[in-house]
């Protein structure tokens, strides 16, 4: 019992790392552009399918394939932002951007169904099936690698945001778009690149999701985006540290509840969100009350 608990806590933390990666992209996009990219879920699935296509047709390893999929997803992100998000202006921008992202999502979903069909597929590779013996536990290798990768990427993102000139402009734009414009920051370029980065991490997230989950199909995006939204809201919208903490927190809870109540573990996920927001409407790490309606 005790070991099982510990085991599930470890698995929860490891998958939390993977979710953190996907959630950071979402919360970055929110912070800079003030929109919720509800296409993020299907973009993760797209990333997973790209990895799948590369490994099946070109026999590229999952991790090698990322060298192709990450830049590809970055370009896709920049294009989406440039074509569909950038032109939105005015008071309806928030709601319209939700709609635009949804439209993009159903286009991608339709395309994925068309290309790959509705059957569930799995990412496979040497590291997917083998386990590592750590501290008396047998942990699937892929979880460890993906967690490691997630930690590295999040660290790189942190470095980018807090140690570079570009990062400073991103944070300035997150704080106050108008003021950022006034001090000469090219806000539209920052927005495009941020959206690109936010989408690029879905390539990694998608690979990890496809390799660690129980298979995926084009419909998986809905479940994924709901969880990611729960994570970033719980962490406080726009807070990167909050997204990290909330991912690990939520996934650990889900993994632990899974021991006793496999059916209800997903409900706990959302119930935790509702509960936290009832007590603290800004989320765990939200800095200020949400702006006026």
């Amino acid at each position, binding site marked *: 019992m005790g070991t099982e608990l510990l085991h599930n806590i470890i698995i929860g933390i490891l998958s939390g790392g993977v979710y953190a990666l996907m959630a950071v992209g979402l919360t970055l996009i929110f912070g800079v552009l003030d929109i919720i990219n509800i296409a993020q879920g299907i973009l993760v699935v797209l990333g997973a399918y790209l990895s799948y296509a590369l490994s099946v047709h070109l026999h590229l390893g999952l991790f090698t394939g990322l060298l192709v999929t990450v830049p590809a997803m970055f370009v896709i992100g920049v294009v989406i932002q440039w074509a569909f998000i950038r032109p939105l202006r005015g*008071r309806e921008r928030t709601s319209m951007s939700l709609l635009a992202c949804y439209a993009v999502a159903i*286009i991608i979903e339709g395309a994925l169904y068309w290309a790959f069909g509705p059957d569930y597929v799995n990412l496979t590779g040497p590291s997917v099936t083998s386990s590592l013996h750590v501290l008396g536990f047998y942990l699937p290798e892929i979880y460890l690698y993906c967690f490691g990768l997630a930690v590295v990427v999040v660290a790189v993102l942190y470095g980018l945001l807090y140690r570079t000139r570009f990062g400073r402009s991103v944070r300035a734009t997150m704080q106050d778009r108008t003021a950022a414009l006034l001090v000469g920051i090219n806000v539209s370029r920052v927005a495009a690149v941020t959206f690109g980065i936010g989408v690029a991490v879905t390539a990694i997230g998608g690979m990890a999701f496809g390799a660690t989950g129980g298979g995926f199909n084009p419909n998986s995006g809905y479940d994924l985006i709901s969880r990611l939204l729960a994570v970033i809201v719980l962490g406080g919208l726009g807070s990167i540290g909050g997204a990290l903490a909330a991912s690990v927190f939520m996934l650990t809870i889900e993994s632990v509840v899974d021991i006793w109540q496999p059916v209800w573990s997903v409900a706990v996920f959302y119930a935790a969100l509702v509960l936290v927001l009832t007590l603290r409407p800004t989320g765990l790490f939200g800095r200020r009350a949400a702006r006026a309606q």
Partner: protein
Amino acid sequence: MTLARLRYGGLAVLVAAAIAFPLAVTNQEAATLGFDAMIFVAAAAAWNMFSGYSGYISLGHAVFFGSGAYAAGIAARDWQVTGAAIFALLPLSAAVAALIAVPFGLVALRVRRHTFVVVTIAIFFIFQLVASNIAVTNGTSGLNAPFLLWSPVTFDDRFYYVALALAVLAVALSWLIRGSRFGLQLRAIRDDEDRAAGLGVRAMPVKLAALVISGAVTGLAGAVWFFFIGQVYPQSAYDPIFDLTVALMAFLGGLGSVAGPVLGALVLEPAQQYLTQQLNNAYLSEILLGVIFLLVILVLPRGVIPTAGERLTAWRAMRMAPAPAGGAAPSLPAPPATAGEDRPAGPAHAREQSR
């Protein structure tokens, strides 16, 4: 004057066409389509009553839709209601949906904007999961509606009229709300909640009341839909596509206007079904639908009705104030106050601007 006459004339034509629809169309598929369209007119109008007027975008209205369906189904099963008497269960469906809206609102309405959207999605998933896993809803096997002993010839038509009545009720209700003090309070909340509160609007009760009314009407739509379809499953009752579809319909037509969601539903539902049928490829039609949405968003970023209203206002302003040469009038900035209006306050604004 002409505008008002145009509006009432259009309304009369629309209602007459809606009533005559089953007489003109004998095709089975078209009759089903008519029913679906009316259900969505009601659901989109109900959604708009809350989300359109208050600005709180709900992506969890399937909670009310599904709960209305389940309430009717469970009551019919447990109380052995059969035949046309099941329609007597409709008030129950509305009441259950309204009752669910209270805790829903008390939790979700504490947060605003994006966070509100996400909380509604979370609550939606909780409901879907609960319905799949408890005994009273019969889990994932779902429930069957009592069999109606209507002949297949009149079945569709009768249901069409029930749905039409519901749609008319929903639209009338949203028209009444929009013109009332309550509606003004809601729109004040949409424009600036803090300021509205400062001016004496008791924001929480007002928002909650709107959600309860909207939820009740959505629950009714869910129950009627369930009687027509004949069965309900957690996946079909609590359907994420429903959440998005009603929002999309309202957006497409024009958020916060009375006619917008009606127009959106009447365009979108047939378009969706037509595409699926014609292309014989559900995936391609899904892609096309997405493309159409993107085009609408880029070309008519505020929905059809408000954009058309604005154009009309600008055009009238141009006619009424042929004044300063150099074409100042055509570049009139859209008066922000009329955003989301289905009836632009034409002359008043025109005069203001031409001064």
